[in-house]
Each structure stands twice: as C-alpha cells, then as structure tokens.
C-alpha cells in the first residue's frame, strides 16, 4: 500500500473526526455555560449537585465515560447499544467537555468585578441585559486562551472514540498499521492532528486578535 493510498483511506475517517470535533463544541460550549450558571446558583442543592457532576466528569477518564455511555445502559438495564456510535460518542464528549468549559466560564465570570454589575444595575439594565452585554463579552475575552487549550485537547481526544468502535481517522490508521505491519499510518495521523490544530490555533488567534481592541 502506498502512502497516498493510506492517506486516502484515512481521510475517509477524517469526516468522522471532524464530526466529533464540531458536534462536541456545538453542544458542550453552551452546555458548559448552563452548568457554570447552575454551579454558581444560590440554591445550595443545585450548586452541590452541579459540583459533583463537574468533579466526577473531570475526575474520571474520558475513555471510561465513553464506555459507560455506550455500554452502561446495556449492562445496567439490559437496553440496546446504539448502532450508530456517533450518538453515544457525542453525548460522552459533550458531557465531559461541558464540565471543563463550565469551570473555565465560572472562573471568567467570577473574575469580573462587582462594579460592572452595579454600574449596569444603576443604569437600568435588566439582569439578562447586564449578563449578555456587559459581563459575557468581557468573560469571553478573558477565557479565550483557556478555551483554546481545551479545543486543542479536543482535537487529540477525538481518537478516544476508537474505544467504542467509532471508525474515525485514528482507528482507520490503526487498521492499516496492523494489516500492513507499518508505522507510517501513525506518522500520517500525527501530521493530520498537527495540521488540524494549526488551523484551530489560527482561528482562535484571529478571535483573540479581534478582541484585543480593549484591555
């Protein structure tokens, strides 16, 4: 098998890798905000439950969570296992990443001084307007570097999906490596991830630059 054939075969799985990446961001970024707000709730029960959720998801391996979401229902309740693995994969990834994003958001929100809230309140902004117009834009700027870190990690984490037989790029790479007794597919995978992350760094850098007009 030539390197070009390997690249072509692995590219077939790249679509699935991208699906994990984009769908995880699509769901976990807003879900993380919800979790962060619940975590900061004045209701003790709500904030405690959320705290436990965050510490469990951050404190256990993603691989375990993938297995639990995919096969847990079968072993615990005798329910079926999803034929289309994208669904459990996205659920596990989104829940996991939401926990990480939630803590980043919380740190960002708590770093905004009380004065900003008070100024908005006295000027007559509703709580909703204050959060959306005054607090959130400043939070976004502050947390962008940490979010970039997580997004870069997510690119590499997509390869975890192999544990539940989701045929993404790295899984295909391993198949080829095996049947060809070759290390080349891993080199190709490395280059793929590197280029993917270079694109991520470029996009996030552009965001940061756009927000650098103020301090």
């Amino acid at each position, binding site marked *: 098998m030539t390197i070009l054939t390997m690249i072509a075969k692995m590219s077939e799985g790249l679509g699935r890798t991208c699906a994990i990446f984009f769908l995880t961001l699509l769901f976990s970024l807003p879900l993380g905000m919800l979790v962060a707000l619940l975590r900061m709730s004045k209701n003790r029960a709500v904030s405690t439950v959320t705290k436990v959720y965050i510490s469990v998801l951050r404190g256990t391996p993603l691989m375990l969570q993938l297995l639990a979401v995919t096969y847990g229902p079968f072993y615990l309740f005798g329910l079926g296992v999803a034929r289309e693995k994208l669904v459990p994969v996205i659920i596990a990834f989104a829940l996991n990443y939401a926990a990480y994003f939630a803590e980043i958001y919380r740190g960002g929100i708590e770093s905004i001084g009380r004065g*900003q809230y*008070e100024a908005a*309140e*006295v*000027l*007559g902004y509703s709580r909703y307007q204050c959060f959306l*117009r005054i607090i959130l834009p400043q939070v976004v700027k502050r947390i962008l570097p940490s979010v970039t870190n997580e997004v870069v990690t997510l690119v590499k984490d997509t390869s975890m999906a192999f544990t539940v037989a989701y045929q993404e790029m790295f899984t295909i790479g391993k198949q080829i490596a095996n049947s060809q007794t070759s290390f080349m597919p891993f080199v190709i995978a490395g280059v793929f991830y590197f280029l993917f992350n270079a694109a991520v760094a470029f996009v996030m850098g552009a965001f940061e630059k756009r927000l650098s007009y*103020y301090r």
Partner: protein
Amino acid sequence: MSKLLEINHCRKRFDATRVLEDLSLSVEKGQVLSIIGPSGSGKTTLLRCATLLETMDGGDLIYLGNYAARDEGGTSVYAPPAELQRIRGMFGLVFQNFNLFPHYSVLKNVTEPPILVQHRNPAEVRDQAMALLEQMGLADKADAYPYQLSGGQQQRVSIARALALNPKILFFDEPTSALDPELTGEILRVIRKLAEEKMTMVIVTHEMMFARDVSDWVVFMNEGVIVEQGDPREVIDHPTQERTIQFLRRLQEK
C-alpha cells in the same frame, strides 16, 4: 420647593454591625447636598441604599412621592421590580472607580443605556451624548476606549454616561478619591458647573473646601447617624458638635 428624595428612619446592619441607625434625610429640587464624615461612618452605605444597590432593613425611601420602600412595622417593604426599575430612571450614580464598560468605546458607554433602557431614538441619543462629551471636554475621545483615558477623563465619561439618562438627581460616591490629586480639579469643575445649572446632587466627599463652596447643605455623619447638618459655611467653619470639630481638625492636620 418640592422634595425630590426623602429617606425616613433608615436602618441598616451588616450581620452584627449597625451601619445606619434611624437616619432621615431629604433633598429638594435643585439642591446640592454634601455628605461628609470619617470612613466607616456609613456615608457610602447610605448612598448605596438610596441607589437601590443595598436594601434597607427599615425605613422609607421615596423619590418624588413614589415609594421605593415603605416602612411597615419597622421593616422596609420594597416596591415590585417594575416600579423599582421605573424609579431607577430618576437617579444617576457616579462611582468612585468609574466602572466604565471597558469593551465599549467612550461614545457607546454613554449612548447604550438610553437606547437600551429608555428605548430612545439612537440618532437623538447620539447627538445628546456628543453634546455631553463636548461639555466634558472629551469630544475628541468619543471613539477611544476607557483604557486609553486618564482617571480624570474616565470619571468625566462616567458623569456623561449618568447624565445621558436625564436623571432628576445625581449621586456621587467619592468621585475624586481614586484620582491622582492633580486630576481632582477637573472633576470638581464639572460638578460645580452642574450645580450652576441647578442639577440636584448628593455628593459623598472628603474635599471639605469643595463641599463648602458648591453645596447648599452639608450633612456630617458619624457611626451611622447624622451628627450635625446645615449651611456648609456654618457646619464646616463653625461646627458645634464635638465629633465634627475633631474630624475637621484632624483633616486640617493632614
């Protein structure tokens, strides 16, 4: 003259500490009232209660006859949120630390509240904002961001921001305390000019000379109560109460 603001028998405590005790105060239209006193005397808390940033434990808070809070059996009962929101439109507050929105340009800091909160015509608000900035000597800074301005300039923007909402009364919480001494003058000039225009104002300040010159009425507070009040020249130049005399003497020594 009609009463613009009335505070009756205000009480406030933080945990076990009594901050304000049976404090009453009223401000009439066009009046400039200064509140002076040592730190920890409750001046800022009084201002925060008046601007609804803190809730009083007991007492009335009335703007132009509208009750924001009414004392019922020793407990302040606040009006529903919609009414409080309406009352918020009657006053403005200038903070010690300016609290400008750093992600907005100077102009947007001034124009967004009237457009968003009062649903006013954006073009008209813009014209008013530019006029206010002109008045503050900041017309050329309209497109700058707060971080590019000096403290004095930022404070002038925050005054413009408060004025853009056309408040009936403007509160100042130690407006020059966060500024370098050489920058306090420009803020005091702006406030003096507003006083000449008959803007109703309540100013918490440490600037005795300024309080004496600009205000019609001075209130000296200590440990949560009003110790002495009256004509500024009387209170500041000829205090009658022992605490006031001590405070003013200590201030002079510095």
